[in-house]
């Protein structure tokens, strides 16, 4: 370990740099960290852990502790906050929530704002004066406040040197450079109050002669502290604090942003006499300012400026007795100041002096610690080792212990020691490079992953867009990715509810990866006029992980509880992809990105009455009916129904209606059995091989079976338990609103009357009967829909259609005309409201409707 420095990482993961980070000693053994985010961390060096996090409303640019270590001044974008750290910590400790964890998180409210000056970059406290340095468009503003009541005392401005700053503007968005602000005291000036006796790192004592040379006799006589600013535009300027009429004056220009200003003893002449001011520029210019003894002419002391250059860029720096430590970001280096200066002393009259000094300044020694972004002042531990406290670029707090007696080791560099050290250096460098490489590798890998993901997404998008544009031409089965549904009734907690199981098929060659969401919108085809479309529509979304080609995804969603929804319902499916999932969590909290997603429509399903029928098995019918009639509400309803029937006074089957009040409304559809035979048989042989062969003689039964088991539009009806084997051509079932319905399919002969041929045709008449008109309407609609699809499948048969055209047309037309008259009459009476009540109108319309439904045309 000889000649290598030990790096101890104390804390990690302090992130965010909008401003130059800062590490400071404060409050005894605590270290204050500010990384440029809106948080200030308090790290206890004794406990070796973070003890508190102070959260400010704005990004923090600088902080300074008061002399008695009680108060903390923090410069934010909106102004300067003053926080009593002890008080805050004790308050945090007393609150029970934080008692368990030792890390106190304190939100600093805006009541602690003491100076509402915007854009303060640096702050400094000198005695009872509080200084802020801020930048306006054209100048630097140094403002003095009374620290007791924050009354503004005075303000000084210095024009901005634009040349340097202009180069800087590109990087301005990335990081605001903080000017360096320190206070220089003359060493012979006794500290005016004991509080200033312990100087913090922002206060340096300078040898009196140099002080007088730099800042004038007046400042020395007034024993005034001098503020020294190193500005990002390269100016090094000073202001005697307590001198009447003093101005901010430029001491020297570095012509590059000043990164560090400090004072160093350099040569032992007396304890604590800083002989030399050091200023370091960002590009590596080092300026030493010291007293020159007896120049060639006139004698006396003069100010000497020694300029040198070290390989930049310099990110931060600090000095101890005679060394300048600075970090270039990739390495921490140490520059021995005394070496260069002592050589200069020795060869005073030599003309080559300055060149040699530069040479001396140009040979810094590497300490092999990388990525240090901020340094606190160096301390010496008991063993005489120099310890530095650094903050790495990635937010690690590091204690860097320099090997003791480094100088001696360097002087007696044996070759073996040299080799050992260089090997060690190389190893550490390799380790460093390796670490950096692995970070880069992971980054590349994750980006590749994202690209692959995006490729899949795009493929799928194009597939779906292409299919959407040609939707009209493609039948449903040919959609590349589609949904189909299965309805099923379930009974839970005495409540029947209808579930739709949607199955997403992925027959495409692409994987649906993470980030896709299946979105299903369910809305009734018709809705009550009171509720808008939006209110009656329900959206379900199902995010899923991976759906490989050929796989299916099954999701189940509740359609309705019994008696609530109105059918038929439209279920429209779409696939949604959100960009956020692609970019990961970092992007998730970016505003405006959440809503960025691609929505691709899939197909639309329709759930109609036939799908939601609960077919009673012949044995169960009676039981269910009785169990239902036990229900009190049902009995009341039955009573009401019977009342209504009596009032309506529809004569047909009066006795029947009295005994069976449910069967009140009916509708029927006639389909030619020839057509049915063709299509159903064709279907069974061609398309659906597993379907049992239907006996050709019972077409009605097979029609019913087909209607109940299969549906157009991809929705099928799921049956609880086994497939219901229909024993007869009469099906009793319950609709979603609880009403029983009866479906009858029987073969009838339709006679052709007009032509004398007396040719009878067989047709299947499907009759729907129910006590609920809604059920009858709904079922009629559903059955018609099915027959429609059936017709679409039917092979063209020109001959039969021609024959049928005249079949009973006249009769039908007559009936229709009659009905039309009735409708018109009722409409007129309804419109004028003459003598007829609305109830009557409704009734008459209803009867028309019934008549229409009950005497259907034959569908051939």
């Amino acid at each position: 370990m000889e000649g290598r420095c030990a790096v101890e990482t104390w804390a990690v993961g302090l992130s965010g740099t909008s401003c130059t980070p800062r590490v400071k000693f404060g409050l005894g053994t605590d270290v204050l960290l500010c990384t440029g985010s809106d948080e200030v961390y308090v790290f206890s060096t004794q406990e070796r852990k973070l003890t508190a996090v102070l959260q400010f409303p704005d990004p923090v640019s600088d902080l300074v502790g008061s002399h008695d270590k009680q108060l903390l001044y923090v410069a934010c974008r909106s102004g300067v906050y003053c926080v009593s750290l002890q008080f805050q910590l004790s308050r945090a400790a007393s609150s029970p929530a934080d008692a368990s964890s030792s890390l106190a998180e304190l939100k600093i409210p805006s009541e602690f704002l003491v100076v509402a000056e915007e854009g303060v970059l640096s702050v400094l406290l000198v005695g009872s004066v509080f200084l802020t340095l801020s930048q306006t468009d054209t100048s630097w503003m140094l403002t003095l406040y009374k620290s007791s009541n924050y009354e503004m005392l005075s303000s000084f401005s210095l024009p901005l040197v634009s040349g340097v700053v202009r180069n800087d503007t590109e990087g301005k968005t990335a990081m605001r450079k903080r000017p360096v602000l320190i206070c220089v005291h003359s060493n012979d000036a006794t500290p005016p109050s004991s509080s200033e006796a312990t100087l913090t790192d922002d206060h340096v004592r300078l040898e009196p002669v140099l002080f007088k040379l730099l800042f004038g006799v007046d400042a020395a006589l007034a024993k005034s502290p001098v503020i020294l600013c190193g500005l990002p535009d390269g100016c090094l300027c000073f202001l005697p604090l307590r001198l009447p009429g003093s101005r901010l004056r430029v001491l020297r220009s570095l012509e590059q942003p000043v990164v560090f200003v400090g004072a160093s003893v350099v040569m032992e002449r007396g304890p604590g006499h800083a002989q030399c001011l050091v200023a370091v520029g960002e590009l590596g210019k080092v300026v030493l300012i010291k007293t020159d003894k007896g120049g060639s002419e006139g004698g006396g002391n003069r100010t000497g400026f020694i300029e040198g250059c070290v390989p930049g860029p310099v990110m931060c720096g600090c000095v101890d007795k005679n060394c300048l430590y600075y970090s270039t970001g990739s390495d921490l280096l140490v520059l021995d100041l005394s070496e260069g200066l002592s050589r200069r002393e020795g060869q005073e009259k030599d003309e080559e002096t300055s060149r040699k000094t530069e040479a001396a300044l140009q040979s810094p020694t590497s300490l092999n610690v990388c990525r240090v972004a901020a340094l606190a002042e160096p301390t010496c531990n008991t063993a005489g080792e120099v310890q530095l406290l650094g903050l790495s670029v990635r937010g690690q707090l590091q204690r860097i212990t320099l090997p003791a007696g480094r100088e001696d080791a360097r002087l007696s560099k044996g070759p073996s020691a040299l080799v050992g050290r260089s090997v060690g250096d190389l190893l550490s460098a390799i380790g460093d490079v390796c670490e950096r490489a692995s970070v880069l590798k992971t980054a590349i890998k994750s980006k590749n992953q994202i690209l692959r993901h995006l490729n899949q997404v795009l493929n799928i998008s194009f597939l779906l867009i292409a299919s959407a544009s040609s939707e009209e031409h493609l039948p449903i089965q040919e959609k590349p990715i589609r949904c189909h549904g299965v309805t099923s009734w379930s009974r839970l907690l005495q409540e029947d509810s209808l579930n739709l199981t949607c199955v997403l098929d992925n027959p495409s060659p692409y994987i649906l990866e993470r980030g896709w969401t299946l979105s299903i919108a369910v809305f009734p085809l018709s809705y009550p006029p009171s509720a808008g479309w939006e209110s009656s529509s329900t959206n379900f979304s199902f995010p899923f992980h991976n759906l490989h080609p050929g796989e299916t995804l099954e999701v189940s969603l509740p359609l309705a509880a019994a008696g609530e929804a109105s059918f038929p319902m439209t279920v429209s499916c779409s696939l949604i992809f959100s960009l956020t999932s692609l970019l990961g969590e970092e992007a998730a909290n970016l505003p405006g990105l959440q809503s960025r997603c691609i929505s691709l429509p899939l197909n639309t399903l329709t759930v109609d009455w036939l799908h939601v029928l609960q077919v009673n098995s012949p044995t169960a019918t009676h039981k269910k009916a009785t169990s239902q009639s036990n229900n009190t509400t049902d009995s009341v309803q039955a009573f009401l129904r019977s009342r209504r029937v009596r009032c309506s006074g529809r004569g047909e089957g009066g006795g029947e209606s009295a005994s069976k009040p449910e069967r009140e409304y009916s509708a029927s559809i006639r389909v030619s059995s020839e057509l049915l035979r063709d299509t159903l048989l064709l279907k069974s042989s061609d398309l659906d091989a597993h379907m049992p062969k239907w006996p050709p003689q019972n077409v009605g039964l097979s029609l019913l079976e087909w209607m109940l088991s299969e549906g157009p539009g991809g929705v099928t009806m799921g049956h609880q338990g086994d497939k219901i084997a229909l024993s007869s051509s009469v099906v009793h079932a319950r609709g979603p609103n609880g009403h029983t319905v009866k479906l009858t399919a029987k073969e009838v002969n339709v006679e052709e009357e007009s032509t004398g041929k007396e040719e009878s045709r067989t047709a299947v008449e499907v009759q729907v009967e129910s006590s609920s008109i809604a059920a009858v309407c709904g079922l009629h609609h559903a059955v018609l829909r099915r027959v429609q699809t059936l017709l679409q499948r039917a092979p063209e048969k020109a001959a039969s259609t021609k024959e049928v055209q005249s079949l009973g047309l006249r009769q039908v037309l007559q009936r229709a005309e009659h009905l039309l008259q009735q409708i018109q009459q009722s409409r007129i009476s309804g419109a004028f409201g003459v003598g007829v009540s609305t109830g009557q109108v409704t009734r008459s319309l209803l009867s028309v409707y019934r008549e229409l439904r009950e005497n259907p045309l034959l569908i051939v």
Partner: protein
Amino acid sequence: MSDQMCQPLSLLYRWIQENNELVDKCKQQGGGDALSPDQNKTHLRWCSSEFHKLLKKIQGIPPLADYLQLELTVVYNACLCSTAQSQFSEAELLLTQATERVLQMTGDAPVASDPPVFWRTVLKSVGDTALNPCVLYLLCLQWAIWLSTCQLKTIQECQDELFSVFETLSTGVWDEGRSELRGKSSDIPLLVMDPRRLFELLQICTIIAQGAESLSEGRSSEALSGLQTASSLPAPRTLIAYTHLLSGSCLAHMSRPQMALQCYRKALETDSRCVCALYQSMLIYRQLGNTQAEIQALCLLHSTLMLPFATEPALAGTRLLSPSLLLRSQSLSSLLSVPSALSVLHNLALKCVHHERVSDGVEYYLDLLAVLHSEDQHGVHAEGPPLPSLPELYLQAGAALLMARRPADCMALCDEVITTTLELLPEKVVLEEPEEKCEAETRPLCAEGDDRVAMLLWAGAAYLLQGHCHTHLKDWKQAVTHYTRCFNLLVKVRFKKGSFQPQIPSTDMIGKQGTDLCILQRLKGLSLAGRGISFTQTDQLREALRDLQLSMQAFPECTSAGLWCGEVLWRLGRRWEAAACWEKTWSFTPQFSVESLSVYLQEPQSGPLLDSSELRRRIQELGPPLSA
């Protein structure tokens, strides 16, 4: 609002409500004085932005007669807030936009940008409608902006229009409108500042600004008449005081100091915080040579400046638009400037020391030094002459202390100066007397050299004062040591004139008074004289004679050297020479007034003295010269 009201009208009502709430808030803030200026500023900024927002909403609809009154009121409010924040261009833009909308409404074509013509057209196009007062208020604001940006000429050109504002206001249209509508106060848009107050403020501020302008241009009598009429106008005290002050300045320019003093007194009576009146009267006393009164005035001035309420409190009614915002002309601010308290204190101390009030002077000096060393001193800079540098002050204070017979304190101060400068003193320094012509150019170039010469002179003077102290204490040996140190320092200076070689300066090269060379020679003469006198006290007459003669060479006007030289000659038995020496010394008339030289460069009054009448008696006893 009833349901029958159509939508736009209720919108109007809502806007009026919003405006009135804002005005209330704006005024409320002013009521509480407990707020810091910072908070006040923030509040004002907030009000301004709210008014601007409201205005944006209102200007979203085309200009209609119904709305325009409200709109112009909001423009007035927003504009006033902007002006109060010194955002003149923004305010002016608002005004232009508003007037353009007025023209749009009346259907007149937009006119030339020449301000008087423009406003004349606007006023004509509005005619006698209800909008007329509103437009006049806006004209008031335009006036305020012109005044703040020192466009006095434009104001003069528009005088007729501005006078019409006055007529409108005085005929009470505003009042009628108010009282008529007072019943339903929620229906009329309120204004943040009463236009009449604004008018009054603008009127007096304009007269003051114009007065200051004419005064600086030398048209004093012209300015005087205007100012005197203005002093009877209704206005805040501060402004009335200003009119008196400016009248005084006019009178002083017209060489009527007594009348000027009367005016200054009136100004002070009107507003006790009007320190510049005090300062101006002090200057007049100085001009008149009334030292006692001058000292009195300085004393008063200093104590007034030290009072805590140095800043003007907000004046009722003019809270938003402070007079200082309207009075920004260069000539006025130079008239109103007052030196800093420290500078006044220094002046006071110096005056006292020069005019036989040494003990007071010493106290003032000590006060001054105490202030300079206190931690509360924070480099506050003020206009006016800067204080002399600190070593200079130390030396002046030291000299005063010596005059007050406190040699120990004097020596302590001198020690301070010496320790501070000693390490920085050059081994050799060349004093370059700049050529008369290029004096200005070369000054900054040889600044460092000057600095070093000045430091050397300070150290020399400090040694000289220490020598004087020891003389005072009759510690002749120490006195000789310190005078010698002083002399040794002074000989390090070589003098270079033009392109000649540097040389030791001699008597015939005495330059203008106040230059480094003059001070150098004076110091040489005084130190040699001091050493010579000390030698006489220890009976080292030869050395004494040499020094005194050298002193008279370096600085011929040194009375003590001349007299003591004669005394030494007398004691050496060279009585005729002695008599000639005395006669010659008496014949010198001092070239420089006492006050023009630093105190520490004057001949000490504390050393051993020779009685002139005694000397004259001796000459008489000696009889007529042999040669005669």
